[in-house]
């Protein structure tokens, strides 16, 4: 077993220091394992959040050697993030207020989340109150559903991190752009969130430098598939004179249309009813 040295932030935002610890690193161990070992052997009061240890709950976000990462998904032998033989620095996320050690207060995100109108499906397609959609139409939004709300993208986004746009002319952040995209591009949804995206969540503050995409542990193409298509929709509605004319003449997008009036629904092969 090899020994690995760690420097971990202990304390609060204004009062604390980096403390050094060592951990015995075995085959396949991740940073979170080392943190647990340090808790068990050297620092029982070290505060950190975790839950699933499988990259699915989104609670163990931290900054490992300066890179926003899930601790449970960063292997000690991954040389992109951990330099062998060197001390590994573990810090809490910088963008959110620190509670203690590695635990931050991410409640600002929940406030933003509440600003987004929820899913509002059109009238049901079939008399039994169900809808029909095809796979092509849901592929796009399914990608966004993978989000585990680790808020690593919010942590890295320089608009929040360096420019502190969390109030006033504030930026909703990449995670919520993805949430809006997942609703706006939904084939059944009827609500209109574009004014919100432009004026309240301030999509214009994003300069598409793609750090959110780089850190997303779920590999969601946040910028290319979420933010840029939303920016293009905002251009359609608010900046492009030709599109504006087009909408005036031909009516606004399909959202404003009544539920579809097809007589025959696509055949769905259901198991034959038992007689």
């Amino acid at each position, binding site marked *: 077993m090899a020994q690995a040295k760690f420097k971990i932030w202990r304390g609060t935002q204004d009062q604390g*220091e980096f403390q050094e610890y060592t951990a015995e690193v075995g085959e396949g161990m991740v940073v979170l394992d080392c943190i647990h070992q340090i808790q068990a052997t050297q620092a029982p009061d070290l505060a950190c959040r975790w839950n699933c240890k499988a990259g699915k709950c989104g609670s163990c976000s931290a900054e490992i050697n300066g890179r926003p990462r899930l601790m449970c998904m960063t292997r000690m032998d991954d040389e992109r993030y951990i330099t062998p033989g060197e001390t590994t620095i573990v810090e809490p996320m910088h963008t959110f207020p620190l509670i203690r050690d590695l635990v931050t207060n991410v409640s600002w995100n929940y406030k933003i989340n509440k600003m987004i109108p929820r899913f509002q499906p059109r009238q049901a397609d079939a008399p039994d109150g169900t809808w029909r959609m095809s796979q*092509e139409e849901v592929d796009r939004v399914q990608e966004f559903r993978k989000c585990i709300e680790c808020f690593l993208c919010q942590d890295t986004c*320089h608009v929040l991190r360096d420019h502190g746009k969390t109030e006033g002319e504030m930026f909703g952040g990449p995670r919520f752009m993805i949430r809006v995209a997942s609703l706006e591009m939904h084939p059944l949804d009827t609500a209109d969130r574009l004014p919100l995206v432009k004026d309240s969540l301030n999509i214009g503050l994003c300069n598409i430098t793609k750090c959110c995409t780089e850190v997303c542990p779920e590999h969601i193409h946040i910028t290319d598939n979420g933010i840029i298509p939303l920016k293009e929709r905002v251009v359609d509605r608010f900046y492009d004179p030709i599109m504006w004319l087009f909408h005036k003449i031909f009516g606004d997008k399909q959202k404003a*249309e009544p539920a579809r009036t097809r007589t025959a629904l696509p055949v769905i092969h259901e198991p034959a009813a038992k007689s």
Partner: protein
Amino acid sequence: MAQLQSLPVHQGFGETSRRDAWWFGPLVTLIGLSAFLIYANAIVLFVPGYFEIRANKADFFAPHNPAVAPYLAPFHAPLLYDAQSRHAWFQQARPGFWPSWAPFSSAMLILIFPAGFRLTCYYYRKAYYRAFWADPPACAVGEPRKSYWGENRLPLVFQNIHRYFMYAAVIFLFFLWWDALQAFWWPVVENGTVVSHRLGLGLGTIIMVVNCILLTGFTFGCNSVRHLTGGRLDCFSCPRNIAEPRLRHKFWHWSTLLNERHMEWAWASLISVGATDLYIRLCAMGTINDIRIF
């Protein structure tokens, strides 16, 4: 605990806990884009001629100086004004409205369009905001300035006109392909005059065609193309779109395939435009000789 301090905030330029070579990517971008900009400006401002290979290499604009190869350097494409080139759309040396004392190059009239297209491209925006403006230089690395307006206000709100440059770029593609096709149609020069044309192929022809392919891949992977072909729709099979069943989904899907490699297309086409231009100019100046295949 010994001396207590506050959590390092990394707000100064380049400050970070990162220990990898985060500066490498932006540096390469900075060098690559600067090299291209220097080349482009030098050509536009100081080299009005040498956009095609002519018989008299010493004096490009000499009268009765016919082209001996059908190439056209892409910085001059489409070639609007030239007194003798077969590629020119107007057979005169310069437009009437151009002041006679001012230096003129046909490239000056057109380069604003491809330049604007790349300047407002979502990929290039990322590249130069990071490399030239350090906003941010790299992820989780401190920035030189505190104030920030993003693309919400002037001047950057103008990035929203990207799609109009895209329309222009699609039109330019037709001209570029037309010039590339013409590069198969070689002049037969006898005693200093062009007597006929015949099918032929030179290294320059191949370079021009490859350049067109790369530019096409770049242009159709544009995020605005992706949006306008189908990305705007929430529902590809809803009543309005039923007349073209799933066609728009297909267009959107193809554009998305190109878009996934938009950065690679951007660099490949940038390099190919520069290299094609340089190749044809060097041949035109007589520095190197084109290879004629048949």
